């Protein structure tokens, strides 16, 4: 994968919340068509990294490139317009909007001409959303909200999809469905995926490559299989009932 031009290039990124440093010089790459996962404990800085890629908060130093172009200085909405979509931590569905309106919001930056085609595709992927299209987002179950968050992100036809703990708080059966959907999005739609997870077992099985983030620094990286076999990863993130 290394010979390919990376779609996302993160170099020596440091992010602060006020005086508190959350990321200490993170380096990573995501190549086109890959599924890359970032695993790590609570508070390691995983969500911060995803939000930093989207410019909120801004990185205090370092460089973030999308297709070789620096995006670290851009406001969030312009980064999104370049083809980055995020399924954020906690899903952040608009609670007082219907499922349909949430999906319309997902299409904010896209050409209205292909709205119908895009929404049909989302409904085909998650038929539950079609059944509930007029229901308010805040009244959906956790699994349905996660499907909606992913569907909403796909409405913008992203080239790079950032997912923040899509399995959090969901029943095992739903988790399986969500991971299956992520796999399909990568394979069938050709979307590059950068997936942040605490559920290391599922994430590493799905991913082509993975990084391990510890206290705001990348500690380990390798293919999904390598990391699954790594003794440190096993003891820190896998043994303890995750699988």
């Amino acid at each position, binding site marked *: 994968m290394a010979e390919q031009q990376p779609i996302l290039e993160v170099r020596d990124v440091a992010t602060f919340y006020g005086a508190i440093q959350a990321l200490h010089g993170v380096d990573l790459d995501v190549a086109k068509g890959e599924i890359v996962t970032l695993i790590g404990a609570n508070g390691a800085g995983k969500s911060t990294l995803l939000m930093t890629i989207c410019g909120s908060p801004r990185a205090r130093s370092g460089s973030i490139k999308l297709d070789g172009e620096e995006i670290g200085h851009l406001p*969030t909405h312009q980064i*999104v317009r370049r083809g980055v979509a995020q399924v954020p931590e906690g*899903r952040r569905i608009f609670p*007082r909007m219907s499922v349909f309106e949430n999906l*319309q919001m997902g299409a*904010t930056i896209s050409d209205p001409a292909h709205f119908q085609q895009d929404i049909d595709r989302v409904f085909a992927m998650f038929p539950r959303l079609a059944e509930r299209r007029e229901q308010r987002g*805040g009244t959906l179950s956790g699994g349905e*909200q996660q499907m909606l968050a992913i569907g909403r992100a796909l409405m*913008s036809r992203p080239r790079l999809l950032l997912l923040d703990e899509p399995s959090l708080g969901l029943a095992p059966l739903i988790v399986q469905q969500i991971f299956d959907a992520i796999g399909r999005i990568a394979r069938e739609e050709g979307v590059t995926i950068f997936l942040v997870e605490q559920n290391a077992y599922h994430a590493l099985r799905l991913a082509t490559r993975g990084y391990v983030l510890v206290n705001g620094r990348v500690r380990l990286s390798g293919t999904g299989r390598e990391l699954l076999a790594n003794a440190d990863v096993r003891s820190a993130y896998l043994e303890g009932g995750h699988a």
Partner: protein
Amino acid sequence: MAYFSQQLINAITLGAIYGLIAIGYTMVYGIIGMINFAHGEVFMIGAFISLIGFIICSLLGIGSAPVAIVLVLLVAMAFTAVYGWTIERLAYRPLRGSFRLAPLISAIGVSITLQNYVQLTQGARPKPGGQIVSGGYNLFSADGFDVRVTWLQLIIVIVTVVLMAGFTWVIARTSLGRQQRACEQDIKMAALLGVNVDRTISLTFVMGAALAAVAGMLFLMYYGVIDFFIGFLAGIKAFTAAVLGGIGSLPGAMLGGLLIGLIEVFWAGYFSSEYKDVAVFAILVLVLIFRPTGLLGKPEIEKV
């Protein structure tokens, strides 16, 4: 009965004007969580621009009242919208992300600045607006009392209803309105979907100011006289209307405006016109104590 009906007609007219101003308070609060205390002055500016507009119309020899009203309405909305946009740009945007009270203090500063600016440029004396629309229709007579709705009252209510309906449609159905609601519900997420949050906030101020300009024009026509200080009382009453209806809620602002109009007019009509403002502000206090979310307000925390 006749007296009551007449008071009701007067109250609805006044309530319409308060409702138009209240929308600006509630929308700005909904989207950035701040009370724009300069909004009353924006209304006052709208009234002055309308006055200038009517004078220019009469200088140009536009004799037809409907043509003059429509022209002045559009011009006042446009110019006042520029004020709204500029205020946000200069006084609030630089303070975004600052501590919560900072924009509030800035708003008070803007309010004082605008009052003084108008006092300096237009003079401190009340300005008569002249009568643009006269006449009316006698609905019925009873107890030796004519119940009358003036054409002006009819115009005020119709303009308000049309604008509120149009405005509700924009918020509920257009992509701009959807983006505003998205910002109101989760501004960070809206940005993550590509919404230009700064632009959306600017447009919210522009819309609120345009509606306040309409209220200013209607106020000028209804009372026939304005001065640089009218924004203070009207602004606080409209703010009370927004709180009573539930701040952040659009139908709440309209309902609140109507109720404040009713309370003020009926208090003045049945008890004492000296204490009508006290009655309105007593309502504000009662609402804040017993129902801080207002009549149609959303509870602070919604389970997501």
